[in-house]
C-alpha cells in the first residue's frame, strides 16, 4: 500500500469534519475521492499532506506512519484548485523549486526540469513568468512541479474546478495520460462525478466526513449502494414505492404495480423487502423511454417510436429477462433541448415527476405519455421505519 488512511477522524472545534475514514491506495492506482462541497475532502488532503494533524487515526505512506511528520518529510506532491505557482520565479524555477530542496546537482536539476516540462508539453515556456501562462498551462506547470521531485503520492485537490468545460475535458485526459506514463499513485479529489468517473480506477464517495461508497466507477454507477450515491453519481429519478405484498414482493411505483422475484433483487441481497415499510426506487433518465399515448384521432406520429431508445434493453443486466418493464402514465410538463439530448420532464399521474432523456424531439408539452423502464434498470432501496 502506498498510501493508507486508518480510521482518520478530525474535528474543527466541536464540528466533526472527518469520521473514521479508512482508505488505502495501491501502488500506481488512480483513485478519485468524490463528494459535494463541505464533505471533508479537503481535510483528507490536508491530513495526508501534513498541514492538518488529525484528531485521531493514522496516515501511512509506503508503510511508514507519518501522522506526526511535518509536510516537508512526507514526499507528497500536491496540486490545488487555484494556482500556487510562485510569481517571483520563472516557470523553470518553479519546477526546479522542489528539486533544490534535495541534494541534486545543478545539472541534474536542469535536466529534470526539462524532462517534466516536456512531459506536460511546455518545454518552450521554461523562461516565462507564471503570470504570462493561460489557465490550462498554469495547471500543467503545477503538475510538472509537483511531479518533478518524484513523490510517493500525488494529491490533486479539485485541479479542474476553476476551468471551462472544454479545457477541463482536455486536461482531464492529459492528467490520465501523465499518470499512466509515470505510474505515480494518485488521489484525485473532485466534486464532479464526470471528472471522477472518467479518470479513476476506483471511486471513493465521501459524504459528511464519512465514506459512503467505494468501488469501480461503472459498478458504482450501475449498482449504487445507497440513494446518495445513486443521485450524486450521475442524474437519477427518485420514486417512492409502496410495498403491497412481501411474498412475492410486490410494489407500486409511479402508479404501476410491479412484482419482484429473487433475481431482480440481486443487487441488494442484504436488503430484502421483508423488513421494509416502503422503498425508494432510483432510475436514470437515460434508462427511461417515453411513448405518446395513442389518441383515436391521431395515428401517424408515433410510427418510429419503438426505435427511440433501443439500447435501453442493452443496458439490462439480466439478459434473460430483458423485456420485463414497468409502465407509468403521465403528462409532459416541459421539454428542454440541451443540444446533444432532450430532457423531457413528465408529471406522473402518481404526482411524482421524472426526467426522461431522449435523443430526439417528438413530444410536446401537455402530451399524455407512457414512461417505460426495464425492471432491471431500477435500483430499489428498501426503507424500514
Amino acid at each position, binding site marked *: 500500500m502506498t498510501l493508507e488512511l486508518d480510521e482518520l477522524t478530525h474535528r474543527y472545534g466541536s464540528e466533526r469534519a472527518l469520521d473514521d475514514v479508512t482508505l488505502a491506495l495501491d501502488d500506481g492506482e488512480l483513485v478519485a475521492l468524490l463528494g459535494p462541497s463541505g464533505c471533508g475532502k479537503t481535510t483528507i488532503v490536508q491530513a495526508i*499532506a*501534513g*498541514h492538518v494533524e488529525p484528531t485521531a487515526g493514522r496516515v501511512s505512506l509506503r508503510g511508514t506512519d507519518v501522522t506526526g511528520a*511535518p*509536510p*516537508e518529510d*512526507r514526499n*507528497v*506532491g*500536491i496540486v*490545488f484548485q*487555484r494556482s*500556487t505557482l*510562485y*510569481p*517571483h520565479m520563472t516557470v523553470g524555477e518553479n519546477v526546479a*523549486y*522542489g528539486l533544490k*530542496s*534535495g541534494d541534486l546537482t545543478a545539472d541534474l536539476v536542469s535536466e529534470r526540469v526539462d524532462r517534466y516540462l516536456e512531459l506536460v508539453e511546455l518545454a518552450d515556456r521554461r523562461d516565462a513568468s507564471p503570470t504570462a501562462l493561460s489557465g490550462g498551462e498554469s495547471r500543467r506547470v503545477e503538475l510538472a*512541479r*509537483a511531479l518533478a*521531485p518524484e*513523490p510517493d503520492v500525488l494529491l490533486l485537490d479539485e485541479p479542474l474546478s476553476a476551468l471551462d468545460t472544454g479545457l477541463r475535458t482536455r486536461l482531464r485526459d492529459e492528467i490520465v495520460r501523465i499518470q499512466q506514463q509515470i505510474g505515480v499513485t494518485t488521489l484525485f479529489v473532485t466534486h464532479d462525478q464526470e471528472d471522477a468517473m472518467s479518470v479513476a480506477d476506483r471511486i471513493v464517495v465521501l459524504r459528511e466526513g464519512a465514506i459512503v461508497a467505494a468501488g469501480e466507477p461503472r459498478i458504482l454507477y450501475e449498482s449504487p449502494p445507497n440513494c446518495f450515491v445513486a443521485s450524486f453519481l450521475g442524474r437519477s429519478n427518485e420514486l417512492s414505492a409502496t410495498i403491497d405484498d412481501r411474498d412475492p414482493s410486490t410494489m407500486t411505483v409511479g402508479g404501476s404495480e410491479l412484482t419482484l422475484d429473487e433475481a431482480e433483487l440481486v443487487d441488494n441481497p442484504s436488503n430484502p423487502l421483508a423488513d421494509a415499510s416502503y422503498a425508494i426506487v432510483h432510475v436514470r433518465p437515460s434508462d427511461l423511454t417515453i411513448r405518446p399515448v395513442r389518441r383515436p384521432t391521431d395515428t401517424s406520429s408515433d410510427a418510429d417510436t419503438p426505435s427511440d431508445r433501443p439500447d435501453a434493453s442493452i443496458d439490462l443486466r439480466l439478459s434473460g429477462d430483458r423485456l420485463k418493464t414497468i409502465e407509468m402514465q403521465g403528462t409532459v410538463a416541459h421539454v428542454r433541448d440541451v443540444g446533444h439530448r432532450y430532457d423531457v420532464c413528465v408529471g406522473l399521474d402518481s404526482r411524482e415527476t421524472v426526467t426522461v432523456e431522449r435523443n430526439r424531439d417528438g413530444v410536446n408539452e401537455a402530451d399524455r405519455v407512457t414512461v417505460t423502464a426495464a425492471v432491471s434498470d431500477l435500483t430499489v432501496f428498501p426503507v424500514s421505519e
Partner: protein
Amino acid sequence: RRLPPLLVFGALGGILLVYFALPFAVFLGRTGSVPIAETLSETASRTAIRNSLLTAPVATAIATILGVPLAYVLARETFPGKRLVEALIVLPLVVPPVVGGAMLLSVVGRFTPIGAAAASAGVPLTDSLVGVILAQTFVAAPFVVITARAGFGAVDERLEQASRSLGYGPIATFRRVSLPLASRAIVAGVVLTFARAIGEFGATMMIAYNPRTMPTRIWVDFIAGGIDAIVPLALALLAITLVVVAAVQ
C-alpha cells in the same frame, strides 16, 4: 449623470486635500527667504541631523527585526490570547506620544531599577541616543507590524503549503516564499516606521530632551527664533522623510 453626486463628494474631499496641500506648498515657498545652507552647517543643526540619522534607522531596524516575525505569526496562527496581543500592538498607536514617553520613563527612568542599573553600566537610557531609540521604537514599531501582517495575510497560505510539500521547512518556506511575496507590504511598513521614528517628538521630549534630534532641535529653535529660524531644519527633516518614502515606492 454620475457627476453631480461625485461633485459633492469631491468637493468635501477637496477641502481636506487643499488643507493637506496648502501648508506644504506655502512652506516650500518660504525656502527662498531664509539662509538654508548656512543654518544647516551650524554645529547645533549638524549634531541634530547626525543624531536623527543615527537613531531612526536603528529604531526602524529593531522594529522590523522583531515586528516582521510577529506579524507573520499573527497572520498565520491562532492561539489563546491572540486578541490581547492584537490589542497590545495597537496600544502604542492610540496612546498619545507624551503618555507613551511617560510610560517608558516609568520603566527606564534614571531612578527606576532598570534605568539605574543601565546608567551605572555606562549606558544611560534617558537623555541619550539610546533613550531616543527607545522612544522611537515604542512609537513607530506598530506601523511595520500592522502593515506586514496585512501583507502576509494577502499571501495565499496554499503557496506556503506547496513549498512545505516540496521539501522546505517552515523557516526556509518563510524566507523563500512568504517574505518575497509580502515584501511590498513589508517595505511600505518599514517606510512608515522610519517616517514615524525620525519625526518622533512627544515621547522623545520626555525621555531624551538631550541630545537633540531634528524634531526636538526644531522645537528649541522655534522657542528661540520663531518660524523663520526653523525653516531650514524643518525642510531638511521633510526632505529626508520624503526621499526615503519616494525611494522605495
